[in-house]
């Protein structure tokens, strides 16, 4: 049988969103791959140029609906850098809590999607079940489950509710128990899971850096880069946490990526607990931001999927002159053909699932 191209997308169970991975297969082996993206391009960078600074937060929320707060926060941080203002300390701590809650919710969504990718539908429902806990916490904090519009230029929209800390601790305690027992058993201790993920989708550390792979995908290659540690923003400097890096052999495969993300669930819980501990109990959570600003500001943050970079230029008006969004998935997508080549067709799902694609931010 000659080699032929198969469209994995745009309407396909593998593509969690609207994009197309064209794979060339020889029998069952993938010999080449070509990502085709742009189905969801909404022209955010252009739209943001006619909206006021604060009103753009609504848009950045929708960059990736799974991970809204982290994206809005990156944008707010860039605008704050441009305006030269700084969030009050309590605001920064609240942001850290919000960011980590959102990171857990996002990683759980990834875990949920990774289960059916491998044919494990039970994983989907279990992960979504626990994601509800964190969406409830986020709702308690911001008033909305998704697209929260919570970070503000200069702080956050509102203070934490009274009972937030107790609720947070209770949910995290319950969640850690589930992670250690149920998830651990159904994913990591399953032999079939190891068979499916180990040794597939390999990418070396040098190649990953050169192709611009960031975040958990890069840490899975054994590169100790976590922007919360390398270039600390907010109050991450004061928090004691361990960036999840894969140190053992077989780095850069799907299993390493899985383990890095999976362990980040636990690590984020620890960060939240610490933040609740160290947070000043009272104080302002927001400063007044100027309406107009001139100059340029950039902020790079550790998004759930990698390095999110916002570059904002203001020309003295109340709207940005130019906004540039650097999406981690966009750059990782360029490297996926390397991961796919030489693997089996069924592996393409195990690989692309472990990369954690979010089409909204990829296509902007």
């Amino acid at each position, binding site marked *: 049988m000659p080699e032929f191209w198969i469209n994995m997308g745009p309407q396909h169970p593998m593509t969690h969103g609207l994009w197309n991975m064209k794979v060339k297969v020889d029998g*069952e082996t993938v010999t080449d791959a070509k990502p085709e993206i742009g189905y969801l391009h909404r022209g955010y960078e252009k739209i943001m140029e006619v909206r006021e600074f604060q009103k753009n937060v609504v848009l950045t929320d929708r960059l990736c609906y799974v991970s809204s707060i982290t994206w809005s926060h990156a944008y707010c941080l860039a605008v704050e850098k441009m305006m030269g203002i700084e969030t009050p300390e309590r605001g920064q701590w609240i942001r850290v809590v919000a960011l980590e809650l959102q990171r857990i919710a996002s990683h759980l969504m990834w875990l949920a999607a990774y289960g059916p990718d491998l044919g*494990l539908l*039970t994983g989907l429902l279990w992960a979504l*079940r626990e994601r509800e806990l964190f969406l409830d916490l986020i709702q308690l904090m911001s008033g909305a489950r998704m697209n929260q519009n919570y970070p503000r230029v200069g702080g956050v929209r509102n203070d934490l509710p009274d009972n937030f800390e107790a609720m947070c601790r209770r949910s995290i305690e319950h969640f850690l128990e589930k992670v250690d027992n149920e998830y651990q058993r159904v994913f990591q201790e399953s032999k079939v899971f190891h*068979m499916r993920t180990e040794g597939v989708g390999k990418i070396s550390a040098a190649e990953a850096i050169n192709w611009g792979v960031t975040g958990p995908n890069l840490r899975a290659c054994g590169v100790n880069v976590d922007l919360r540690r390398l270039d600390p923003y907010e109050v991450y400097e004061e928090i004691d946490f361990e960036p999840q890096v894969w140190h053992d052999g077989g780095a850069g495969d799907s299993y390493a990526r899985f383990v890095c993300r999976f362990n980040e669930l636990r690590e984020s819980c620890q960060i939240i607990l610490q933040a609740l501990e160290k947070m000043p109990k009272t104080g302002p959570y927001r400063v007044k931001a100027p309406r107009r600003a001139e100059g340029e500001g950039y902020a790079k943050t550790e998004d759930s999927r990698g390095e999110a970079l916002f570059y904002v230029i203001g020309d003295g008006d109340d709207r940005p002159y130019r906004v540039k969004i650097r999406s981690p998935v966009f750059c990782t997508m360029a490297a996926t053909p390397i991961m796919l080549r030489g693997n089996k067709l069924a*592996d393409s799902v195990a690989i692309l699932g472990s990369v954690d694609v979010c089409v909204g931010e990829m296509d902007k």
Partner: protein
Amino acid sequence: MSAPLIPNLFGVCEVLVLAIVWIIDQILYALAGLIPPLTGLAQWFDPVARRRLGMGPLGSELLIVLVTWLIAVTIIVIWATLINLLTMMWVERKFYSRLQDRYGIMISIWSLPFWPFNRAHRPTHRGTGYLQNIADGVKLLQKENITPRNADSAMFHISPVLIASSTLMIFAALPWSSGFYVANLDLGILFIFAAFSLAPLGILIAGWSANNKYTLVGGLRAAAMLMAYEIPMILSVIALVFFTGSLNPLTIVRQQDRPLVSFGALSIPAWYVFSPQILGFIVFSVSMMAEMERIPFDIPEAEAELVEGWTTEYSGMRFGLVFGFKWLRMIAGAALIAILYLGGWSGPVFVTLSVGGVPVPIVPEEAWFLLKIYLISIVFIWISWSVPRVRIDQILNIGWKKLIPYSLGAIIIAAAAIASGLWSVG
């Protein structure tokens, strides 16, 4: 030692047919008063008149035999599809929903709009969910049947029929108890395997004829995988034949219906799973799981990468046939495991009632058999919803490099057990 509820399906059907014929005959006699030529026909049907005229018994007439067979087959088909298939689907959907911490299907008789006993405060979607599969079937019947423009139309339409009919063929030779069966074949097990292995041909035809890359890859995967798993399955049955000396399911079950070891009142039955056949049992069960295309081995329709595999292009009830009949194959597979290794319908009977002189066992053989089938199926369902899907090369590795050597080993062990006199044939 249990007894069947239906001692002889053909006999029951014959009684049924003769009763109907008697009613028709009375009508014919009544009509013959008006139309005299009908008297001959009425006498042909009348057993008393037949005896007087020197004709043989009515039951031996070809027409009556044919009708009786037709009714017997219909009863088995309805029993298998309308009752057991629906129940099995319901059990699976309810069971894996509970594994996943949710209620699962809930459409029941309370959800029907014309059900008269609904109370205003009762939520209509909080039932047991048994009617959900029927609702799905009705939905599929209403849907349009789409044939892709570039598909090979004849082949595309033949393959669901081939799959469905070959699956139903299994039940012609599959007994449900020592009396509840259509045909008692000496080579029944062989016939069942032959019917089982027709479906991969249908899958291959479906994959090729739809002219779609997903279905093509799915069809080729099915061909590669089912071949790799049919061989160890047959080999492990060959190991079993060393012990049974027969391929007749009734004989095989009768052999297992005795105690192996007794501890006072309790005894371990002489099921073949407790014999040196244990290796063959494992190989057979794993291969059967692949034959059913359940999740660790469901690569022909791996929905994550192949959309829906070889069933991608089917729609409407044609999809319903190829999709729903997987459960029928699961019932057949579980029944085979029960017959070959787990004692089939043998089991203790506690009390036998006497209804009008006819002994009716309180726990009949059919009940034991159904219990075993559903328990085996639940184990399969449990496995398939707790593990991810295995990749095609790994599946073939397991099939060719593990299961075939194991099944050959099972043959050697069985032969050695017979040769050394550890176990006697039959």
